[in-house]
């Protein structure tokens, strides 16, 4: 074993990279799963949030306030450790996807609500006049237009989510950060391993952020 940690890290690079890249795949998996779940939850609660009746609005507002007021790490621990205490033992990956999905759903509820509210009320009234139901009006008139308003914040959410999934390491989901921690335990090369981990996150998040920025510019230009 070479005494210099940088030389040792260089020797171990292929092994470390293969371990970390396997983790990066899981990171992408958690991100994608939570993203889809958050969109579903966000859509449902955004519709509730913009209903004329009081009760659904109150329920949606409470959901948003509570889940945006509590750290996502706490929410993960409730889902993973808390539910296990009640006999519901989720595997770490599922717990992470559910946790980030529910947490992200609260954020996206507000994003989607802003999208729905950006459509002029007159269009919805016109849809009623044509004999459409509320759901038809939402689906056919409002949502297709709201998509343009919603896409940029949705993209930024995806970038944020990708980085947030690092917290899934705390419930032992085998994603990038968790693999990094395991490698550090085995090699004691904390500086080198975490620098690699950081570089891999950058390699995923920077292109995604760049893509979102381009999308923003495209949509902005289309509207002017």
């Amino acid at each position, binding site marked *: 074993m070479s005494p210099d940690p940088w030389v040792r890290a260089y020797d171990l690079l292929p092994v470390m990279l293969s371990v970390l890249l396997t983790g990066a795949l899981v990171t992408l998996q958690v991100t994608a799963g939570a993203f889809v779940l958050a969109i579903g939850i966000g859509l449902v609660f955004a519709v509730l949030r913009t209903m004329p009746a009081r009760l659904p609005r109150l329920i949606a507002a409470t959901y948003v306030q509570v889940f945006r007021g509590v750290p996502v790490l706490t929410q993960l621990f409730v889902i993973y450790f808390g539910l296990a205490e009640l006999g519901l033992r989720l595997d770490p990956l599922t717990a992470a996807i559910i946790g980030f999905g529910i947490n992200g759903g609260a954020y996206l509820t507000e994003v989607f609500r802003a999208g729905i509210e950006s459509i002029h009320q007159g269009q919805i009234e016109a849809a009623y006049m044509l004999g459409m139901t509320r759901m038809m009006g939402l689906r056919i008139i409002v949502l297709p237009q709201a998509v343009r308003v919603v896409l940029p914040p949705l993209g930024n959410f995806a970038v944020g989510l990708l980085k947030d999934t690092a917290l899934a390491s705390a419930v032992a989901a085998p994603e990038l950060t968790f693999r990094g921690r395991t490698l550090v335990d085995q090699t004691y090369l904390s500086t080198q391993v*975490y620098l690699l981990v950081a570089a891999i996150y950058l390699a995923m*998040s920077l292109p995604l952020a760049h893509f979102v920025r381009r999308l923003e510019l495209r949509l902005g230009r289309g509207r002017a």
Partner: protein
Amino acid sequence: MGWPALLAAWMPELLAAARGTIEMTALAFVLAATLGLALALARLSRIGLLSRSAFVYIEVVRGMPAVTLLFLIYFGLTSFGIALYAFAAAVIGLGLNGAAYLAEVYRAGIEAIHPGQREAAQMIGMRHGQVLREVVLPQALAVVLPPMGNYVIALLKDTSIASLISAPELMLRARDLTSEYFMPMQLYLLVGAMYLGMAYPLARAVRFMELRLARGR
């Protein structure tokens, strides 16, 4: 043990730990706000190298998870002979992370001021620094305050990740108590409620400020 006994055992410890959370939030905020301003000014500077370094810092730090930055500072620096207290490492990590975010907020604030005002200030003989200090920054403040408020709320919640490097704050105490009492559901719900109890009033205050500032304009 019933609820009253449990709460009597837990609450003093959790409240003491919540103090750590608040202190960590405040210190990291001060660091992020100062360093963020320096970064924003560097980013807008006409000196290419300065501007480009600030850009790279912002992109790199915003591109990685805050946990990774904390790990690099707390575990990674030890190989350079720098061993920080977990609390200090958390404050520095969250501060460095927040600075990159706030730099973009400041930049948006500064760029929101019409360039005609700068030109006018230069015409009446003000120097570059004076223009910034007396004309641009006071107005940019109104643009910057609401997102800064939202950042404080996010930061308050983000301090929970400091528990992953064993920095003394609310989440770490909850984890310790969990391994002592084996009641994760009760403890994490309680701690969640405590975070909510801190974040909700803050969110209301930011909302109020937003409405006030919007009316003023």
